[in-house]
């Protein structure tokens, strides 16, 4: 991405994808994408498939949710911003808001902050403490986080039932509280209405994802 040429290509792909190819990409297919896909996630393109273990040791693949709206939220139990959006009900409202529109939507928490083993180890307890009965995935090598370009906790992604990544960014516009728009619910709403998801990308806020070093 350092050269102008590469940057231009990436932009052309991303921007054209949002405007024209929304929700038209082929859904992720587990057979085609065993393990982790090689491509980077781009809004407007097929969401790359991945398989991770849950805190319970079970395998979870994006392709398992084929045909359903999927929300990925990057979390870190040791990030105070994550804790805040969980504690103040933002995550619960996001989940219920999405489920109102897509009752079978799948909301998944992903923890890529493997630089801190305590963060990974505390994920299950964190979800239980906040009464969030969701798949909580451990991205121990950070490969999925980097594939999706997850920068912060929280950082949210919305994947359409057709498997297209339609939104990437902040959970809402309330970095300092007082949110006016929940971007994740907005994306689900616009998708359901057949509209282009806008904004399709926002700048996420929160702690950096503490990727494993080296």
């Amino acid at each position: 991405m350092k050269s102008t040429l590469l940057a231009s290509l990436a932009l052309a792909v991303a921007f054209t994808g949002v405007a024209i190819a929304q929700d038209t990409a082929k859904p992720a297919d587990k057979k085609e994408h065993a393990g982790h896909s090689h491509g980077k996630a781009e809004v407007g393109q097929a969401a790359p498939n991945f398989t991770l273990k849950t805190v319970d040791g079970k395998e979870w693949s994006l392709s398992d949710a084929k045909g359903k709206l999927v929300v990925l939220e990057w979390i870190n139990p040791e990030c105070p911003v994550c804790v805040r959006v969980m504690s103040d009900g933002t995550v619960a409202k996001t989940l219920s808001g999405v489920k109102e529109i897509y009752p079978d939507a799948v909301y998944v928490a992903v923890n890529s902050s493997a630089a801190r083993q305590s963060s990974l180890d505390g994920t299950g307890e964190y979800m239980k403490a906040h009464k969030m009965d969701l798949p909580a995935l451990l991205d121990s090598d950070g490969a999925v986080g980097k594939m999706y370009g997850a920068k912060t906790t929280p950082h949210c992604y919305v994947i359409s039932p057709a498997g297209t990544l339609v939104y990437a960014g902040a959970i809402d516009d309330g970095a300092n509280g007082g949110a006016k728009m929940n971007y994740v619910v907005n994306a689900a709403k616009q998708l359901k209405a057949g509209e282009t998801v806008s904004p399709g990308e926002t700048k996420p806020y929160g702690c950096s994802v503490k990727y494993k070093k080296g």
Partner: protein
Amino acid sequence: MVPGVFERRETGRIMPGGRDFRHRGPHGGDRGHNGDMLNLLPIMLVPALLAEPLEAPTPVDPPAETAAKDGTALVKSTVLPERDAIVAGGEFRVAVCFRIEPGWHIYWRNSGDSGMPPSFRVVGPEGFAVTRVDWPVPEVFTTPDETTFGHSGDPAVVLTLKAPAGIPVSTRIDLRIESEWLVCKESCLMGRRMMGLRVPVVAPGDGRAQGPASRDFATILKRLPLDSGAIGLAAAIEGNDLRVTVPAADGSRIRLLPFETRGVRFRPGPTFEAVAKDGKAEIRATMKIEPDPSAEGPRTLGGLVTVTDPTGSAKSAEFTLPVPEPANTPASR
């Protein structure tokens, strides 16, 4: 003392120490950390109408429970007024002066790849509001995974406040400004503090509310970016590009840090750089502009441009431009 009004410290200087804040109640009792502040809230939110002689602005102790734990202790903060008094209906400036524990940093208005900027809010009295925030030139923090912008040491953020009309002359206002921040090193903590400032209200034309800024405040203003014209900076939007040009000695390094504007995304970002040649430098930053349904008025985008000449001397200036609203979008139909 009038009941509910925070007592002035003998030093005449505030130095909030996180959980060390103490509120003196109507009877002089130390309410300490868990005082029953709820009973006093209605009074706290009303301007203090005092019959005492007017004095210079005085930082005052905020309520104890407003000092949150964790990141609060890592970041001290005080309020410094630009001048000695304010005028009803007028604008005035104060600086929020931070002192950050070494090794830690807070964030700039655009935090970069992660983080979030501090917030500033006037809690009371009713009718006062923050109308503008001026940020000092940030540092750039780069790791293999990300680039962020922020402040370490003792940054000061300048707030422009609007006073409501109709405040009686010769009264004093107990201004309460709350700031919340994310402070990070290898990990991050939230901090929050309510800061108090007692400021007299004078008649329009009174010298205490106009004229040069205090010496300390003038020093803070010097740490703010220059206006674009001061370095010959020109910025324009051309299609999907933000084009920034600036005259500079050959070999100078130019860096653009865009401000954060809702619905405007820069790619690849978060910084854009160029090297001056033939006496000028140009940066083209590609944007994607999407509608902002919750915008309350015309949007602006802008950025901070720093020119570092070959000797290492640096100047920073900022610019703003109106955002061209995208056509043929769901929001514009």
